[in-house]
């Protein structure tokens, strides 16, 4: 249930971790593909929020190479591109594994599709 749409929004929130805390790196993941309803309007609305480089590199790490290195300009998205984006953002689910902060190395475990974002007392801001 962690999909790349949410992963792309997620940064480490541990105390003192304010730079280089995105994107969290996936480790030992188990993936599952689940069909989701295609909604091009939603995708176009969401595109300005995407950190494109992080999305492309994370998708590649998970074995999906369908996205172009450059994000198309608004209004120039092809159907093929939007379908690829739909699949990457909405249909790839990370079920097990973990996400590791590139800065402080905090490990957020994912179990049954649910990441554990709880911090220990000394990690709270």
């Amino acid at each position, binding site marked *: 249930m962690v999909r790349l*749409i949410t992963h792309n929004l997620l940064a480490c929130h541990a105390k003192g971790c304010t730079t280089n805390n995105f994107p969290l790196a996936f480790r030992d993941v188990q993936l599952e593909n689940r069909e989701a309803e295609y*909604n091009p309007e939603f995708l176009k609305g969401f595109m300005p929020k995407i950190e494109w480089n992080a999305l492309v590199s994370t998708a590649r790490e998970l074995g999906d190479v369908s996205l172009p290195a450059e994000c198309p300009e608004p209004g120039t998205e092809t159907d093929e591109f939007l379908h690829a984006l739909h699949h990457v953002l909405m249909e790839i689910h990370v079920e097990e594994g973990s996400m590791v902060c590139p800065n402080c190395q905090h490990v957020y475990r994912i179990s049954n599709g649910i990441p554990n974002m*709880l911090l220990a007392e000394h990690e709270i801001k």
Partner: protein
Amino acid sequence: MSRPEFQAPPEIYYGDTEAKKYTHNTRNQAIQAEMTDRALELLNLPEGQPALLLDIGCGSGLSGEILDEEGYTWVGLDIAPSMLEVALEREVEGDLFLHDIGQGLGFRPGSFDGAISISVLQWLCNADTTSPTSSPPARLTRFFTSLHAALTRSARAVFQFYPQSDDQVTLITSIAMRCGFEGGLVVDYPNSQKAKKFFLCLFAGGGESSGGARRKVEIPKGLDGDGGEQEREPAAFEKRRTNGRGEKGKKRKGAKENHKDWILRKKELYRKRGKEDVPRDSKFTGRKRKSVF
């Protein structure tokens, strides 16, 4: 009976038994759905535009199911593993996170177009340890600051909650304002003991204006009357909801789809996805707030 939030920390109070009881009680389902509908109304999202929403304290997904139904994409946060487990069983569409909102949120700036939170905020007002990081003002400040950052500038956040006192309303509201929000309390059915409901309605665009005078936001008006529908049976309630949702329904698949059709369609979608085969047996790990990783 004393309030749930006085009895135990949320992740303990909403253990396996209570999570199931809470979720399967049809009267409770109807009340949570009704309040979610009202929160969405107060959220005042642009008509016909898809949005990404946050469901703060999503629990077992009773509020999230309404977001699914309305065609919104959402992310849910909750501190109680047993509630999230039930949400998985109910196959809600949102991405779920085990998260203590009092520790602050970890989303990039401008991630969400709006946030709802149904029957949660009162839980943040109880300290369950003596540690300074867990004082209610510290937790509320961390939460509102990080929420404000995670919202787009035009976003609102609407919290239905059960305040313990006027002082508590003042405390929560003043901290939210200090964290950059504008807005205030909306009270529905103020003259009815039974139906009276509190919604804290926050505007993220509020305190942001650079230099010039602050744009004054207009706080929505509460509903009058005695909230008659609150006392109706769930069946009647479903009817009202489907009928009342003419235009919004278009965003859902098929304008005239009623609730039952919607469930059937959703079930079909899951069968197509082969979700039934997905094992849901193991409890997810790391459920302690203070676990060391």
